[in-house]
C-alpha cells in the first residue's frame, strides 16, 4: 500500500528501523556506564567497610597472618613519594618541551618529529617503561649502587607522564591568542618575558588541569613499578629510604589481590577505596575547573 500523506507514520518500515536502532544505541550507552557504576559501588561497599584509623597508621602484616592484615601506611606514603618524584621530573621537562613546540618552533621538521615522538611515547605500553628503567637503572645499579628503589619507580612513572604534560602545555599555549604575544613583543618585552609573564599565565588553568589529570593517572599506574620500586612492608622513615624498595598502593592491591588469604584481600579493597576515591575526586574537580574556564570569556 502506497501512502502519500506527509504525516509521521509509525508503521512505516523506516520509522520502525529508526526506533529499533535508537533503542539499541541507548542499550549500548547503558552497557558503557554499567562497569563504572558496578566497580565504584563495589569499591565503596567492600572497601568502605574496611576504613579505620589503623588502616592509615599501621604497616601491612606479611601474608599468613590470619587475623589482622595491618594497615597501608607505607604504601600510601610510598605512592605520594613516587608520584611526587615522577611529577618533579616530568613537569619541568614536559613544560619546557611544550613551550618550545608552541612558542619557538615554526612547524619545521624538528617540531613535527617531536610531536610525532610525543604521540608515539604516549602509546608505549606502560610495562615497557618499567622494563626500560629496569635495564637502565635497576640492573646496572647506577644510582649509588641501589637496585630496586622508589627513585627508580618515580623515574619510570615520569616517562609515562611526560607525553601528557608536553601535550597539554603545547595545546594550552596554542589556544592563547596571538595578539597577546604581539602586544607584549611590540612594547619591547623579550621572548622569555612574554612567555613567562603573558602566555603561560593566560594558559595556566588549562595546563594545570591537564597536568593534574596526568598526575592522577600516574598515581594509579602499577606496571612500571612492579620491578622498579618493587614493594615494601615497612614504614618510610627517612630520606635514605628513597634508595630502597618502596611500596605503593597500586602494587599493594596487585600483590594482596592474588594472596589466598581473606584479610589480605580485604586490605586490597581498602587500598582501592582510597586510591579510586582520590583519583575520582581529582578528576571531577579538574573537570569542573576546566568547565568554568571554558565558560568564562577567554582573554
Amino acid at each position: 500500500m502506497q501512502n502519500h500523506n506527509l504525516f509521521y507514520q509509525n508503521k512505516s518500515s523506516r520509522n520502525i528501523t529508526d526506533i529499533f536502532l535508537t533503542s539499541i544505541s541507548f542499550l549500548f550507552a547503558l552497557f558503557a556506564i554499567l562497569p563504572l557504576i558496578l566497580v565504584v559501588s563495589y569499591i565503596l561497599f567492600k572497601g568502605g567497610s574496611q576504613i579505620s584509623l589503623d588502616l592509615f597508621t599501621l604497616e601491612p602484616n606479611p601474608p599468613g597472618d590470619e587475623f589482622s592484615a595491618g594497615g597501608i601506611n607505607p604504601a600510601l606514603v610510598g605512592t605520594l613519594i613516587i608520584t611526587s618524584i615522577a611529577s618533579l621530573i616530568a613537569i619541568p621537562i614536559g613544560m619546557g618541551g611544550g613551550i618550545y613546540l608552541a612558542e619557538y618552533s615554526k612547524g619545521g621538521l624538528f617540531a613535527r618529529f617531536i610531536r610525532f615522538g610525543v604521540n608515539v611515547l604516549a602509546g608505549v605500553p606502560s610495562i615497557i617503561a618499567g622494563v626500560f628503567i629496569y635495564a637502565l637503572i635497576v640492573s646496572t645499579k647506577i644510582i649509588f649502587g641501589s637496585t630496586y628503589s622508589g627513585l627508580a619507580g618515580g623515574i619510570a612513572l615520569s616517562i609515562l607522564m611526560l607525553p601528557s604534560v608536553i601535550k597539554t602545555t603545547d595545546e594550552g599555549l596554542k589556544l592563547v591568542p596571538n595578539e597577546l604575544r604581539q602586544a607584549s613583543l611590540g612594547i619591547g618585552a623579550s621572548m622569555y618575558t612574554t612567555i613567562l609573564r603573558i602566555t603561560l599565565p593566560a594558559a595556566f588553568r588549562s595546563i594545570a588541569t591537564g597536568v593534574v589529570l596526568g598526575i592522577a593517572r600516574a598515581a594509579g599506574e602499577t606496571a612500571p613499578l612492579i620491578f622498579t620500586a618493587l614493594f615494601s612492608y615497612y614504614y618510610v622513615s627517612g630520606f635514605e629510604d628513597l634508595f630502597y624498595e618502596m611500596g605503593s598502593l597500586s602494587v599493594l592491591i596487585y600483590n594482596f589481590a592474588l594472596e589466598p588469604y581473606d584479610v589480605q584481600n580485604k586490605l586490597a579493597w581498602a587500598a582501592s577505596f582510597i586510591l579510586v576515591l582520590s583519583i575520582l575526586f581529582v578528576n571531577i574537580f579538574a573537570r569542573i575547573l576546566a568547565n568554568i574556564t571554558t565558560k568564562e570569556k577567554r582573554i
Partner: protein
Amino acid sequence: MEEKLTLFKNRKRFGIEKNIDIIFKNTALVLSSFVAIILLGIILVVFFQSFESFSKYGLKFLFTSEWNPVKDEYGAFAAIYGTVITSLFSIFITIPLGVGTAIFITEDFAPKIIREIIGSFVELLAAIPSVVLGLWAIFVMEPFFRGFFALLHSWFSWIPLFSSEPTGRNSLLAILILVVMLLPIVTSISRDTLNQVPKKLRNAAYGIGASRWKTIFSVILPAALSGIMAGVLLALGRAMGETMAVTMIIGNSNAFSWSLLSPGYTISSMLANQFGEADGTQVSSLFYAAFILMILSLLVNIFAQFLVKRFSLKYR
C-alpha cells in the same frame, strides 16, 4: 623625523637580557628533544638486551611455546598468540559498543543533561586504575560469569575457541575486562570526531528525505570514519600493552591452547610475572618478548597517527 629616530637609538637590549633569552630558548629546545632521546633509548636498550636471546633462538622464538628455564628453552608463541587474540577480540566487541554510545551521546535522543552525564561517566571509567579493575574482575566478574562460561562450553564445544572446560581465570575474562578499559578510549574519540562533522552535511541529508539512521549510516559515520578508525587503532595499541588487569585475570599459563576458556598468557603479563625473578637467558628472552610487544604497539600507533594526519583535514 630626526626626533623620532633618536628614540630608537638605544634599541639594543641589555647583554644580560639577551643572554637569558638565548639560554631560555635553548633550554626549551633541549627539554623538547628529551622525548626523542627517551624514545630512542627505550628502543635501543630493549633491542640490545634482547640480543643474546635473539642470536640464540632467532625467529624460532616466535613460533614455539616452550618456556623452560631449567632446560634453557624459550619460545613466546603462546604469549604472542594471547596478546593478538585478546586484543583483537576485545576491540571487535568494543567497536559497536563504543561507537553506539558515541552516537547516542552526539545525537539528540535524550535530554542534554542525561547525555552529558553518560559522557562524563564513560570518561571517568578511563580514570579507574587498571589494577583496581583487575581486583574487581577477580572477586566480582569471575564468580558472576562462571555459570555462563559452563553453558557456553556445553553449547559451543565444537568451536575450537570454546573447546576446553572453563577454568577459574581464563582468556575470555581478560577479553571482557579489556572491553571495559577500551570503551572510554573508543567512545571519547568517536564522540569528538562525530561532533566535528559539519552540521550542513546532516541538514542536507535530512533535506532530501533521509531518515535519522539512514543519515547516520550513510553520511555521518562515513565522514567520521577516519577519526573513529584512529581511535580504534589507539585502543588496539592500548589493549596489546595492557598489563595489570589482564595479568590478574588471564590465569598465566604458557601452555598453548586455542580455547578462550582455558588460562592464557600475553607478552605483558609474562613480563609482569617473570621479570622480577628471572636471570640469565631468561632475562634476555623476556627483553626479546618486550621488543616484540613494543614493535607491535609502535606499528599500530604510527599507523593510527598516519590515519589522523591523512584524513582529518577532509571536513574541517
